[in-house]
C-alpha cells in the first residue's frame, strides 16, 4: 500500500501532469463524437416524417422498409460494432412541424445525419436549416421526394438523393403518353411545392414536344379519400384531356380517380411514385366489388422495381428481411388503426435507402465523423446495390438512381407495364 509521503505525492503529480493532456484530449474526442450522434455503441440518425394524418402510410412504410435492413445489420453487430439507431419524429406531412423536429434533432438529439424524410413541402422548408448549420456538416440522406430544391443550388450540396426525380418521372409519363398518341394531358396536383414540382415537370416535358398542359386542377394538402374531388373533375373535363397526371398523395388521388371515373372521365390516370400505390389501391378497392372499374385506368410510375420480382437480388433480400423482422413503428408513433402492407414500393425504397446508407457508414471506418461523410459518399462508384443499376456519386452527381418503372393493376395487384400502346392506345 503506497504511503502518503512527499516522494509519492511528487511522483503522482508528475505522472498526472504528463497524462492529463492525453486524458483530456481523449475525453474531448469522446465528447465530440457523442455530440455528433456517434458513440462507441451507436450511430444515431434523425428522421422527421408523416406517421399520422392522411399521408401516414408513406412515413410508416418508408420507415418499415429501412428498419428491416437496419435490424438485420444491427443483428449482425451493427456497422463496425455500432448499432444504427433511428430517432423518429412525426410531422404529419406538414412543413412547420418538420422544421421544429429538425431543430430538435440537430440541437437536442445531436444526430449524426438526417435520413428518410418524407415529402417536398417539408423538405423544402428544412433545407435552409441545413445551410444554416453547414459548419456542422449535417447532411440529409435519401429523402422520399423527387423535387428539385434538394437537387440543385443553393441547397443541393446539403442532400443526397437515391431515387429518380419528379422531373424524370413526369418526363417519362409524358414521353409514354405522347408515344401512344395521347397529347392532351391535364394535371391534377397538390396545391404546394410538391404539386408545383410535378406540374413544372409535366410543363417542361410537354414544351419539348411543342405541347402544353390542357387543364389543371388542385387540391389542398391533407385531403382524404372521403373528400369530394368533383369540382376538380369538372374543371379538367372542360379541357377534354386524353390523360391526367396526378401529383399527389394516395388519399386525394384515390378520391380523384373515383370521382373522375364516376363522372365518365374514363382515361388513363397516372400517378407519381410518391403517391403510395398500395395505399391508393386499397382505398379504391375497399367497399366495392368492382374495383377494377377504377383501377383499370391507373398507371403509376415507380422509382424501384416491382417487389414481386424476386429475380432482382435486392428485392429478394427485401422480401426475406421484411418477413423476418416485420418492423413496427415504435410506441408513441404507433397507429393502431393502420394496417401495414407486407410489401410495398415505398417500403422497398426505404429498404434500398437504408442499404446504401449502411454502405456509406461502413466506408467511414472505425471513427465515423460528419466531416468525412461527404467524402465517403463520393467514394461510391459503380456500386452494385443489387437493383440492376450501378450507383455512383460525385460532387456533380448527388442522385444515385435514374431508372423508372411503370405499373398497372391487374387482378388487384400492381404488375409491370412494358407495352403502353397495347394498354392505352
Amino acid at each position: 500500500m503506497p504511503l502518503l509521503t512527499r516522494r509519492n505525492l511528487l511522483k503522482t503529480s508528475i505522472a498526472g501532469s504528463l497524462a492529463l493532456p492525453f486524458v483530456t484530449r481523449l475525453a474531448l474526442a469522446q465528447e465530440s463524437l457523442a455530440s455528433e450522434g456517434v458513440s462507441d455503441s451507436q450511430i444515431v440518425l434523425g428522421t422527421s416524417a408523416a406517421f399520422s394524418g392522411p399521408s401516414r402510410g408513406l412515413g410508416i412504410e418508408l420507415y418499415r422498409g429501412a428498419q428491416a435492413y437496419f435490424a438485420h445489420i444491427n443483428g449482425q453487430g451493427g456497422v463496425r460494432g455500432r448499432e444504427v439507431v433511428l430517432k423518429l419524429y412525426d410531422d404529419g406531412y406538414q412543413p412547420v412541424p418538420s422544421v421544429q423536429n429538425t431543430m430538435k434533432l440537430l440541437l437536442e438529439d445531436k444526430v449524426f445525419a438526417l435520413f428518410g424524410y418524407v415529402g417536398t413541402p417539408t423538405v423544402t422548408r428544412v433545407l435552409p436549416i441545413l445551410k444554416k448549420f453547414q459548419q456542422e456538416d449535417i447532411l440529409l440522406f435519401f429523402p422520399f421526394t423527387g423535387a428539385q430544391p434538394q437537387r440543385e443550388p443553393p441547397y443541393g450540396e446539403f442532400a443526397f438523393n437515391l431515387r429518380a426525380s419528379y422531373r424524370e418521372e413526369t418526363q417519362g409519363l409524358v414521353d409514354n403518353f405522347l408515344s401512344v398518341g395521347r397529347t392532351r394531358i391535364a394535371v391534377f396536383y397538390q396545391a404546394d411545392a410538391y404539386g408545383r414540382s410535378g406540374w413544372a415537370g409535366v410543363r417542361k416535358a410537354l414544351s419539348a414536344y411543342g405541347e402544353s398542359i390542357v387543364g389543371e386542377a388542385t387540391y389542398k394538402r391533407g385531403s382524404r379519400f372521403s373528400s369530394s374531388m368533383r369540382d376538380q373533375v369538372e374543371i379538367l373535363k372542360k379541357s377534354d384531356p386524353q390523360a391526367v397526371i396526378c401529383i399527389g398523395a394516395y388519399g386525394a388521388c384515390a378520391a380523384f380517380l373515383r370521382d373522375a371515373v364516376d363522372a365518365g372521365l374514363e382515361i388513363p390516370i397516372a400517378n407519381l411514385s410518391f403517391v403510395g400505390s398500395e395505399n391508393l389501391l386499397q382505398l379504391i378497392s375497399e367497399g366495392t366489388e368492382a374495383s377494377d372499374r377504377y383501377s383499370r385506368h391507373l398507371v403509376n410510375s415507380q422509382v424501384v422495381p416491382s417487389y414481386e420480382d424476386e429475380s432482382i437480388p435486392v428485392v429478394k433480400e427485401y422480401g426475406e428481411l421484411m418477413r423476418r423482422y416485420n418492423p413496427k413503428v415504435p410506441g408513441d408513433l404507433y397507429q393502431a388503426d393502420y394496417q401495414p402492407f407486407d410489401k410495398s414500393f415505398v417500403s422497398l425504397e426505404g429498404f434500398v435507402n437504408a442499404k446504401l446508407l449502411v454502405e456509406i457508414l461502413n466506408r467511414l471506418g472505425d471513427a465515423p465523423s460528419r466531416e468525412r461523410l461527404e467524402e465517403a459518399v463520393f467514394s461510391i462508384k459503380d456500386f452494385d446495390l443489387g437493383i440492376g443499376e450501378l450507383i455512383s456519386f460525385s460532387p456533380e452527381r448527388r442522385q444515385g438512381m435514374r431508372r423508372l418503372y411503370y405499373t398497372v393493376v391487374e387482378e388487384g395487384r400492381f404488375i409491370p407495364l412494358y407495352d403502353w400502346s397495347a394498354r392505352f392506345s
Partner: protein
Amino acid sequence: MNIQRLFQRTLFGIFLLFGIIAVSTSWVCIATVDSQLSEEYVSNSKGIAKTIADASVDIILNRDLSALQSLIDQFLEIQGINYIYIVNEDGEFLAHTFVPGIPEEILSSDRAGTDSIERSFSDAENYIEVGSPILAGVAGSVYIGMDKSLISLKIQRAVGRQMYLISSIFIAGIFAAIWLVNLAAKPVSALLAYAVQLAQEQKGEQATQNPLLERDDEAGQLARLFLYFAKIVDPDRVEPQAAK
C-alpha cells in the same frame, strides 16, 4: 294636463336623440375604419407583394418552380391574404394558391398593370388585389388577394363596441330620465290635485292647509296663486296657513 303624454314625449325625445347619435357615429366609424383599414391593407399587401417579387427573381431565373410555390405558401399563412399568384411576362401562371383551380374571373381578365383592384369571385367574397412587378415587369408579376371580409369583420367589431357603449349610456339615460320625470311630475300631479280640490270645495279649511302651499318652488307659487284666485272668486275662504 296629461302627465303620461309628457312622459312619453320625453322618452321619445331621448330615443330620437340616441338614435341620431348611434347612426351618425356608426356611419363615421364605418367610413373611418373602412378607409383606414383599406389603405393599410393595400399598403401592407403592396409591401408583401414587393417582398415576394424581389425574392422571386432568383427563383424564376435559376431554380425550380417548387421553390417559388414554397415561398408563396409561406406568405399565405399571413392573416388576410386569401390568394397569391405569379405570372410570367407572357401572363402564364407560374405558381398560385387557388383550390380547386384558378377562378374564371382571373383567367378571363386581361391584367396588364399592378394597380390595386377589387375582385369578386363566385364564392361571393370580395377581395382587394394588389400587384408588384418582378424585375421591373420583364420577369412577370406577383398578385396578392386580400380578403375584404376581414375588413368587414373589423368594422363590425368596432361598430359593435361603439353600439355597446351607446346602448349602455342609453339604458342609463332612460333610468335617469324616468327618475327625473318622476321628480318633476310629482309636484305637478299634486298641483293638479290641489286645483281640483279648490274647485270642488265650497268653503273648506283643507284647501288652506295643503303642504303644497309651503313649497318655495314653482308648484308652491302656482298653488298659492290658485288659492288667491279662489279667494277672489269666493272671499269666504280662509287665509292659507303659509300665507299668515
